[in-house]
């Protein structure tokens, strides 16, 4: 199984089938979670695809780039688990994880 779980802002839980190489942002959008704006389309130019990722899969994530780090700083809701979902392609190691949409800024 390559599914993972998305929790939307209103607490709705959606199970999503992971597709290798496709960003988490695209997975969330394609699952119909309409709160995710992803206004720049995934080119790391805004911070409207902000999510929180489970601590236990953090080691499997690509490292935070300087730009992503700076853009996350623009959010009032940044936490240690914060990432921009457009910057994380799905990989098999991420199966089973739970990600949560960050509140709207």
């Amino acid at each position, binding site marked *: 199984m390559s599914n993972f779980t998305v929790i939307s802002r209103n607490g709705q839980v959606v199970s999503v089938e992971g597709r290798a190489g496709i960003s988490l942002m*695209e997975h969330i959008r394609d699952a*119909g979670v*309409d709160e995710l704006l992803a206004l720049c*389309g995934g*080119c*790391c*130019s805004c911070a409207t695809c902000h999510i929180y990722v489970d601590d236990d899969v953090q080691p499997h994530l690509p490292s935070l780039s300087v730009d992503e780090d700076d*853009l996350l700083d623009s959010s009032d809701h940044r936490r240690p688990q914060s990432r921009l979902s457009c910057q994380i392609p799905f990989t098999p190691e991420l199966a089973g994880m739970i990600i949560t949409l960050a509140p709207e800024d």
Partner: protein
Amino acid sequence: MHYDCLIVGSGHGGAQAATSLRQHGFEGRIGLLGEEQDPPYERPPLSKDYLLGSKTFERILIRPPEFWASRNIDLLLGKKVIEIAAEEKQVVCAGGATFSYGHLIWAAGGRARRLSSPGHDLSGIHTIRNRADVDGLVGDLADARRVVVIGGGYVGLEAAAALTNLGKSVVVLEALDRVLARVAAEPLSRFYEQEHRDHGVEIRLKAGVAGFIGSEGRLTGVVLQDGETLPADIAIVGIGIVPCVDPLIGAGAAGCNGIDVDEYCRTSLPDIFAIGDCARVTSAHGLRIESVQNAHDQAMAVARTLCGELTPYRATPWFWSNQYDLRLQTVGLSVGFDETIVRGDPAARSFSLIYLKAGAVIALDCINSARDYVEGRMLVERGARVSAEVLANSGIRLKSLLAA
């Protein structure tokens, strides 16, 4: 057919208006009407990833195709509104279809401005505004070697970068004395001119087009006003858009180059709003802002208003442009600036251009400098007054200037 809210225009603004209406609990019938046959898709990749072929069309859809029905939003695609009867609250489409509305959100955007010079209708001359434009362009690319881009704005420069990456020989013609003249100050223009030249693009300034020549109906060259002919297999005309406003103006809405709206995006006609590229906010800057952010945030404000919470549009403008490995992020509106400050070293390909008006920071253009973009936004939003020497010192974080 009657819609409690009819949205005309299936671009970023229209799509977000429909989505936001449902998010805020709008229970009436929603129609989302668009000229194109495709469900709403992102336009910025048309001059970048989609042109390059690095993203398929399915990957630039704003929402998956089944999303609209799942939210009980009727997609009315392939329809063009030609007339609005504001008193009867009806729109009429080409072909005769008629829809009545409770509220109308006009989000029709604009169409690519074209040239009327001799030869303008030869095949091989393209614009970049919608999917069909780019599909046509891509279809022509395989046999093309020499491309002339007419217009040194963002679309033209992004196309020049993409086509250079695809191995084409590219010339950019700009009528003014620098690229990006309409949207940025000179240091940014000169930086991009140099970057493109370094990538092999020929940039010609103060170069007007007299016409096009061809053979058997197909473009072979672009004729300049000084008489020179540049051989070309393809020409791309990137000289801006013409806002799609005729039916609204015909119905009596105030406006000329765009539809005049107040801070709630209300037009002068009852129950008709206008958002996005075609809306001119007369209560604020009096400009049409052509950006995803503007369309999107105006859509959200109107959706809230229609759901009972009167909401003015007051978002801070932002914009981005990707060319080669350069990411430009702008925040604020530089219109009316009286001073610019270069922060950082353009030669290092990471710097910011800060715009001041009467001593206050009003906008930043940040090249490969997301930190300045994020921290500079706060300066813009507060209209911060900081000395030029301090702003120019990239060793001092912009956010540290907020308390000052």
